[in-house]
C-alpha cells in the first residue's frame, strides 16, 4: 500500500492531472444517486432549457445547472448517471477482454506449435472484419441487450489484447528464469501466473488504459447509431445523439456529454502515457 502511494507521488504533473480527472469521474459514477438532484428519467421542464447563468435554471428547485435535454430531463443528473453506466460498462468489457485475451496470448506464447497456430488464425479471422461492421451485424441479429453488447465488444477487443500479450510473453518466455522454472518441473499455471504475468504487467496495464478509452468511445459510437445502451438509460454517447439536433439552433447541450467523454479520455490517456514511459524504461534526465 505504502509502495503504491510512493509510486503515485512520484508521478509527473500530467499524470496527476489525469488521475484527478479519473477520480472525478469515478466519484460521479459511484455517488450518482447522491450527487444527481433529479432521477435519470424524470422530466423536470421544457426541452433544451438554458444553462445555469440564465434565469431558466434557477426557476427550478434544485436548479438545473446544465440545463435540460431534448425532452426536458435534467442534463446534470443524466450526466452523472451516464458516467456510472458508461464507465461500468467499459470496465466490465475491458476486464473481460483482458482476461480472455491475455490468458490465450500467454498460452500461445508458451505452448507454441499448433496451439499458437490455432489461436492466432482465429484471431486473424476476427481481425479481418472491420470492428464496427462486425458489431453492427451481431447486434442487429442478437438484439441490443447490455449482455450482448459487453460480449461483442469484449470479443473484438480481446483479439487485440491477444496480439500484444503474445508478443510480450514471447519476449519473457525466452528468459533464463522461465527456462529454470521449466527445468524445475513447474506446470503451465505457475509459469503463466508467477513467471510471465508479473513481468508483463506494466505493458498490459498501459494497454488496459488505452483499450478502456476505446471501449467507451466505441459504445458512444454504437449509441450514436442507436445500437448502444437503449433509452431511457443514460449514457454519454446516446446523450450526444439525442441532443444532436440542438446544435443547429445554437444550443450547446450536445457538447456537454461530448466534453465529458473527452475529459475522461484525456485523463486516462495522461495516466497511460506515464505507465508507457515507465514500461519502456525511458528515463527523463533533467
Amino acid at each position: 500500500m505504502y509502495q503504491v502511494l510512493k509510486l503515485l507521488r512520484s508521478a509527473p504533473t500530467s499524470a496527476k492531472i489525469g488521475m484527478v480527472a479519473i477520480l472525478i469521474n469515478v466519484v460521479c459514477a459511484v455517488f450518482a444517486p447522491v450527487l444527481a438532484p433529479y432521477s435519470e428519467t424524470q422530466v423536470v421542464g421544457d426541452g433544451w432549457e438554458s444553462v445555469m447563468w440564465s434565469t431558466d435554471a434557477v426557476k427550478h428547485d434544485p436548479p438545473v445547472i446544465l440545463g435540460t435535454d431534448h425532452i426536458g430531463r435534467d442534463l446534470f443528473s443524466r450526466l452523472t448517471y451516464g458516467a456510472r453506466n458508461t464507465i461500468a460498462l467499459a470496465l466490465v468489457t475491458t476486464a473481460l477482454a483482458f482476461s480472455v485475451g491475455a490468458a490465450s496470448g500467454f498460452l500461445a506464447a508458451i505452448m507454441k506449435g499448433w496451439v499458437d497456430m490455432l489461436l492466432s488464425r482465429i484471431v486473424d479471422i476476427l481481425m479481418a472484419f472491420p470492428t464496427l461492421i462486425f458489431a453492427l451485424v451481431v447486434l442487429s441479429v442478437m438484439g441490443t441487450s447490455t449482455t450482448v453488447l459487453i460480449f461483442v465488444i469484449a470479443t473484438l477487443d480481446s483479439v487485440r489484447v491477444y496480439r500484444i500479450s503474445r508478443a510480450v510473453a514471447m519476449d519473457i518466455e525466452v528468459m533464463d528464469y522461465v527456462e529454470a522454472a521449466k527445468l524445475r518441473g513447474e506446470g503451465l499455471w505457475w509459469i503463466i501466473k508467477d513467471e510471465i504475468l508479473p513481468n508483463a504487467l506494466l505493458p498490459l496495464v498501459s494497454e488496459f488504459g488505452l483499450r478502456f478509452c476505446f471501449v467507451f468511445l466505441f459504445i458512444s459510437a454504437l449509441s450514436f447509431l442507436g445500437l448502444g445502451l437503449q433509452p431511457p438509460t443514460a449514457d454519454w454517447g446516446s446523450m450526444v445523439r439525442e441532443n444532436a439536433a440542438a446544435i443547429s439552433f445554437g444550443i450547446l447541450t450536445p457538447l456537454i456529454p461530448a466534453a465529458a467523454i473527452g475529459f475522461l479520455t484525456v485523463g486516462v490517456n495522461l495516466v497511460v502515457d506515464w505507465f508507457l514511459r515507465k514500461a519502456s524504461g525511458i528515463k527523463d534526465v533533467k
Partner: protein
Amino acid sequence: MSEATRLLTIQDLWIEGYQDERWYEIVCGVSLHLDRGEVLGLIGESGAGKSTIGIASMGVTTAGCRITSGSIEFDGQELFGAGEETLRKLRGTRIAYVAQSAAAAFNPAHKLKQQFAETAVQEGLMTYTQAEKRAKELFRRLDLPDPDHIGNRYPHQVSGGQLQRCMVAMAMACNPDLIVFDEPTTALDVTTQIEVLGAIKEVIEAYNMSAIYITHDLAVVAQIADRIMVLRHGEEAETNTTREIIDNPREDYTRALLSVRKRRGETVDHGHQDTILKVESVTAEYGNGIVVLDGVSTKIERGKTVSVVGESGSGKSTLARVITGLLPPIGGEVRFQGQLIPQQTKMRDKELLRRMQMIYQMADTALNPKQRVRKIVGRPLSFYFGMTGKQREERILELLDRIELGEKYIDRFPGELSGGEKQRICIARALAAEPELIICDEITSALDQLVAEGILKLLQNLQNELAVSYLFITHDLDTVKAISDEIVVMYQGKVVEQGPAQQILNPPYDPYTDLLLSSAPEMDPDWLPSVIEHRKELQKQGVNIQT
C-alpha cells in the same frame, strides 16, 4: 618529458552519472597524461570508470553522464567546455575510438570500405579513391585475408576477429593522433584474441601512434601498454610502467588483480566411486539440420568436477541442453545413475529434475526480477519437499548463510543485488533442491575477476561439504585450471580430448588443446611475440586456427 611531445593531459577530472533520480560520481578527480607514441592501459573492474574516462578523452560523455569539473587538454586545446563543432572536427580525424563490439558498431547495410572511407571523405581529407587505397594498405598491415577485396564485403561476411581488425583499420583511416581502444578483444574467443592483439600492437608501433587501451584483463593490457593505470571506484589506485606494475605492484588491490588463480587445494575424497551421469555417443542438431554435437561421450563421478572447455560454437552449451532435456538428441543416450532417462524435460519426473540443477551465465536473466529472494530460493523447497511456513523460512536462511549472504538479503529483489550476489542467489536456488549434479554454464564469465574467484571458492567448499558433482562449461582456461578434476576439450561438436586434469594440462599436449592453452594471456609483456611464434609451429602441424 618535454612539453612538445605531450599529447593529452587530463587533470582532476570529475564525472557524474544520472541514476534513480540522482547524480552519482563515476570518476572522482582522475589525472593522467599521454605522450606521443605512448600507450596507456586503463584497467579496473566494472564500475571503475575506465570507459567513462576513455570517452571523456574525446571531450564527450555518454548519455546520462556529465563532466562536472577538470581539464582535458588535447594537443594544446582544452576540450572540456569546447563547442560541439570543435569536438566533432577532432573525432574520427584526430581522435578515434574502437568499441568492444564490432558487430554492433558497423552498419550491416554498407560495405566495409564504404564505412572505412566515410569520415575521411566527409571531412575532405581524401577522395574516395585515396581512401580505398589507404584501406587496402591498412587491411594488409592488419593481416586481413585478401586485403585488396575484403573491403567489398559486408560486415556479416567476415568473422568476429576480422571485423574487429577492420574497425581498428577504420579508426586509423585518417591517421589520428590518438586512438581509444575500449575492450576491443573482450568479446572474442581466446584463440582469436591473439591475432587481434598482435595486429593492434603492430600498427601502433608501425605508425607511432598514441593510444589509451581500456580492459579488465591485466594480462591483455600488459602485452600492449607502456604504462598502466589501475582504477578502482572512479579513483586512481596506482600508475606505473607495465613492468613495474607486474613485477612490483605497490597497492594490495593491484596485487589481488595480479594473483593468477591458484590450482585448488586438496579436495575431499568422498569414498564413493559411482558414476552420476553418463553421456554415450550423443548426436544433436538444431532444426536446420546443422549437427552441433557429433558422437559425444563423457561421464561424471560423484563429488567431482568435470570441465567442458572449447571456443564458441564448439557445442559445449548444447551438451548442457541435451543433458537437461531441453534439446532432445537425435542419437545416443544419457544415463543418470545407470538409469536411462527420458530425452525431454517434460517427460522426466520431479525427483529426477530435482537431482539435476542448472546455473546460468547471466544471473540477470536467470532470476525473475519481480520475485524476492525469499520466493526465488523458497520455491524449490516448497515445490520439491512441500516445505511451508517456519520450516521453509529457516531453510532459506540456512541456504543464504551457506552462500555467504546474510538474512538481510531475504526480502530483496534481484535488481537490488550486485552481479556476484545474484550469481550466489542462483547457486542457493540450485542447492535448495539438494541436487547431485549441478550444471554450471559459463557462470563466472560475466563477473569481475575477483568476484568470480569468490564464486569458484564457494563452489569448491560446497562440493567438499555436500559431495555434489559439477559439470562446468567454460571458455576460460584459468577457471578450468582452478577447479577441474576431469577436462573435456571440445571443438566443432566433437570431443577432441578428455581425461584427468593433470594429464590434459601437462605435456604432451594434443595439438588443439595446446592451441587453447597457449592462447590464454599470461602476465608477461613478452608473452605475445612468443605465442605468435608458437602458433606458427602449431599451424605447420596442421592445426586449423580460425581468425
